């Protein structure tokens, strides 16, 4: 489970820290262990499929949750929301695979290292914490743009600040 790549991201997380400017900020908590992540999203570019100008975060948690947030930020910054959402869906599928998936490295990049986590149901939430926060923040940022209050995507573990 603890691939070297996970330990690397854990020890030296990429894109960590909260930065300005941002369009939306969320705080998500894993209530079973108290792990938390505060995450900001900054969008720019075309109205149709805006790009992620920045994803910044502050994570307090285990190696899996911190490394996952680091890998995620590194993969999706600069991508369009649509592209990032596709990666996110693929990652969710991997996490729900119970170790039976053959992850597509061309889509998931470093995130394939989390394959082993899917065999440990109690740790899947750790790996997903950052991703769920990102989805929520992005939905809010898009809602702001559209000038409407958008109900964020469902996430059973979400706790808004």
């Amino acid at each position, binding site marked *: 489970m603890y691939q070297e790549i996970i330990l690397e991201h854990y020890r030296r997380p990429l894109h960590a820290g909260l930065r300005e400017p941002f369009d939306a900020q969320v705080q998500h908590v894993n209530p079973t*262990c*108290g*792990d938390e992540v505060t995450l900001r999203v900054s969008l720019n570019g075309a109205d149709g499929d805006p790009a992620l100008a920045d994803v910044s975060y502050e994570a307090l948690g*285990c*190696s899996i949750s911190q490394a996952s947030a680091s890998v995620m930020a590194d993969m999706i910054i600069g991508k369009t929301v649509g592209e990032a959402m596709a990666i996110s869906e693929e990652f969710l599928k991997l996490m729900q695979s119970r170790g039976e998936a053959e992850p597509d490295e061309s889509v998931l990049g470093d995130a394939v290292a989390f394959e082993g986590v899917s065999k440990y149901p109690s*740790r899947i939430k750790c790996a997903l914490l950052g991703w769920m926060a990102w989805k929520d923040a992005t939905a809010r940022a898009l809602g702001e743009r559209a000038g409407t209050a958008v109900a964020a995507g469902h996430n059973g573990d979400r706790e808004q600040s």
Partner: protein
Amino acid sequence: MTAQREMISGDVTTGAAVAPVGRAPLDVEAVRRDFPILGRAVRGGNDLIYLDSGATSQKPRQVLDAERDYYTTRNAAPHRGAHLLGEEATDAYENSRARIAAFLHASPGEIVFTKSATESVNLVAYAMSNAATFGPEARRFAVGPGDEVLVTEAEHHANLVPWQQLCERTGATLRWFGVRPDGRLDLSNADELINSRTKLVAVTHQSNVTGVVPPVAEIAAAAHAHGALVVADGAQSVPHQPVDVTRLGADFLVFSGHKMLGPSGIGVLWARRELLEAMPPFITGGSMIEVVRMEGSTFLPPPARFEAGVPAAAQAVGLAAACDYLDALGMSNVAAHEEALTAHALKALSGMSGVRVLGPLDTDHRGGAVSFVVDGIHPHDVGQVLDELGIAVRTGHHCAWPLHRALGAQASTRATFYVYNSLDEVDALADGIRQAQEFFGGESAGAA
């Protein structure tokens, strides 16, 4: 408050009935043979080292057999039906109540079966919110604006959130004792916190995180001087130390069956009989009523008033068998055995660099929950490494989030001990922590 240590029930340090010097209080190998699950292998083919009894205990064959025997020979709905099985089921259920009462030095009429310690706390909390509309006898339980409910920062969420909610429903004010850096309650402002506005004090009888055994009798005496009621959370004390409700000081004691070798799905509320007689019901429905008319209903005397629905008779029988099992070992021996394990663990862990134990480092008024933080390694990761070695521990905040905040820990890893644990298993825990340090160590890691 003046110290009344001799008043504290279940003093884990007295060890009155401990076996002669030089002999261990329990024959762990013999005990282990009674627990089938301890024979199974876990990850990597390792033997199971179960250090999570604070969450739920394992079950001896005697408890499993008692439940099975009930289902195979006497199963029926107690207190209903005119048939033989119904009578035998009723006897089995009520005899179990009497057995559990004897375990606590209580009367059977003071034992209410619930599904858990959590439900027992909620029963009292909802009885209090129902009191305002239940006639003059129940008025003493009513709380409202200007009244205070006093808890502690050390509580399990089960003995905290129901009181927060009671205050929100009624307008009463929630107040709390803080904890000192060593995890013991800060009672320095007790004279101010316990006052004429205090209607109820809810306090743990043994912390599920630090193992601290607060001076419940001393707190209760101060509360009673102001006419307040006292609830003791015995979820971690009743399984692990001798508890005598006549010496406890509290008016209510709650605990769960599954943490004391019994089945899941059964809990207990003990309360002084005169309180139960005046308390409004919480859950209503069948088997707790006296007369039902379309216009309204009257209710049975306790404990039936608090046991709506077909009761968990097999679980009650199993819990009574657990009391038999524990009494055969001797609760003083159980406490002495756990004290030895705890002392060994505290010595091993407090001597390790990079490991901080939450709670007292001695076994004085301290039970066998040893929670700790490993510098630079998140509890999830510590727990994962231990799991790979076959060692089952709890990680997270253990349903005591405010206590973790007060002790400056985001989360912790917790080992809890019971009758089937050995000193070797404590050594394996210490070795496992060292392996986690080696695995994640070397470089400064990012986690707190």
